[in-house]
């Protein structure tokens, strides 16, 4: 039996997180490629591209040993295409397909390279913010492909911007092998193969990192409380400012110690009082 059929059958029979997810039997697993088209809209051209022999050959050439595809509505289409490939065309890549999953995070995490556990794999995703944010959040290599069939092709903006910041590789339908080639070159640069074990972000977040706009908006419903806290904000900041100022002055005096430096600091003090 074709290994593809076995994988596909397995996915249909059991839950989407088949036993294959727990890591291969070999001690050093190969790279893993996870393709996701998102939960909202279909993306047939991407599903089609990743089931071509050229793409599978490219994966095999870059030490990828397994390919997982979340196909959405095109699962049957994908299975049919993969079933028509011969063993040679598969190049020994293990293919696993499912339509949707409740736990995208687990699939993405398996593409994160961790020292001693597994090499970095690669996620190929549509250009949706949810998926991109999640993949970048776990520092897995990402190829983002904008879905051109969506409303005014809005995914392209984000993908292009992120590529400029070197956070993702912008994949084009028709030239995904080139993108795979690029991402494999980028992996050692970011040392993405040897990351420490994944730590979920802290929760609740530290007070200094909190996003507090909503709290301020609640305070606008209680004007007296808002006034009191705005005063506290002013006082706290001016205290911090003057502390920083004093430190600066001391440094200046220490370094220069001339009359002119002292005069300017007096001027600054006067300005502060005026404020």
């Amino acid at each position, binding site marked *: 039996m074709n290994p593809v059929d076995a994988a596909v059958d397995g996915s249909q029979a059991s839950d989407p997180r088949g036993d294959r997810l727990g890591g291969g039997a070999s001690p050093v697993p190969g790279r893993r490629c996870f393709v996701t088209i998102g939960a909202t809209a279909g993306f047939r051209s991407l599903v089609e591209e990743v089931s071509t022999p050229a793409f599978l050959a490219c994966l095999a050439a870059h030490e990828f040993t397994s390919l997982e595809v979340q196909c959405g509505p095109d699962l049957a289409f994908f299975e049919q295409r993969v079933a028509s490939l011969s063993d040679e065309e598969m190049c020994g890549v293990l293919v696993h397909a499912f339509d949707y999953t409740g736990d995208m995070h687990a699939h993405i995490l398996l593409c994160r390279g961790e020292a001693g556990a597994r090499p970095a794999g690669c996620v190929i995703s549509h250009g949706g913010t949810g998926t991109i944010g999640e993949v970048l959040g776990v520092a897995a290599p990402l190829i983002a492909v904008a879905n051109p069939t969506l409303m005014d092709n809005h995914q392209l903006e984000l993908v292009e911007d992120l590529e400029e910041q070197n956070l993702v590789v912008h994949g084009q339908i028709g030239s995904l092998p080139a993108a795979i080639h690029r991402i494999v070159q980028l992996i050692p640069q970011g040392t993405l193969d040897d990351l420490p074990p994944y730590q979920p972000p802290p929760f*609740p977040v530290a007070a200094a990192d909190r996003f*507090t*706009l909503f709290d301020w*908006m*609640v305070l606008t419903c209680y004007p007296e409380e808002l006034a009191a806290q705005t005063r506290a904000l002013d006082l706290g900041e001016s205290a911090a400012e003057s502390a920083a100022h004093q430190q600066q002055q001391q440094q200046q005096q220490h370094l220069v110690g001339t009359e002119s430096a002292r005069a300017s600091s007096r001027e600054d003090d006067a300005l502060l009082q005026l404020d």
Partner: protein
Amino acid sequence: MEQIREMLHEFGPDRFATYVYAGLGGIAVVSVVAFFLLSWSWIVAIINVFLGFVVWRHLTLQSSHPPLSTGRRWISRREPRVPNTSNLPAVYYLYILGSGGHTSEMLETIRRKFIPQTNAHRRYLVSHGDDDSLRRVAQLETRIFNCLRPSPNPDLTPAQNEEIITPAGTHDAFLIPRARRVHQPLLTAPFSSLRTAIHAINALTREPNDRPASRYHAHFKYPHVIITNGPATGFIVCLVAHLLKIFYLAPQNRLKMVYIESWARSRSLSLTGRLFLWTGLADSFCVQHEGLLKRYPGRGLLFVGKVAARLAPPG
């Protein structure tokens, strides 16, 4: 009949929404009668006065929005002790979840803003049939509950222990029909939007079951802040909230609106974003890309950084 009874049950004990509907129906009947009885000059005069009143209220409400400079100070604050909302009688947020990416972004924003407070209530508005969002809200709430679970008080019975409100606060979820289903023709969209609006009144005015007026007075009657990030439903809910304030059906110092433009929009605003910009509904219009400020100068856009995307530190 059964349906009506069910709907009345949904409105809760105080029946606020029922009165709003009855009032709207009464106004409709009166205006039809007036249309036949009054002369044209009277009708035109009444309509003018009405429109004038609406515009005046709209401008009054807009002038109460916090100025942009204040918003910038809030965002760039360096004083960690403020804002402190833990002493307020109530802190009540209404989060509007779209679907897919909208939900992911909203949940990440909630994670970034969460602080343990017993006086907090979170209400989630989810579209009908969006089970994925419901499930993820449940995941988030479980996580909040688990990391703040207090040890049970041995002096109280288990039932009493259940009733104690923990620092996790309380939460509930409301289902609301979609404003426009995918592929629904634009012709019928106004009708389904109206249905959404009718349900929105209920979601905006129904007191949480965990916060009954008998114990908390009217502090939890209306949400303090409505937070939305782009689904069409969010605009309709905010429009309804604004109308409630225009006609004095809700107090002016409640139902503040925060619109956060999606992280996906780095160069132009989305349709919902442009609607919020044109109508000036939002008390605070936030964007996550600095480039948008240059594209829409002087329009009150507040840059808040990437609050809806979790990016790993580089390297």
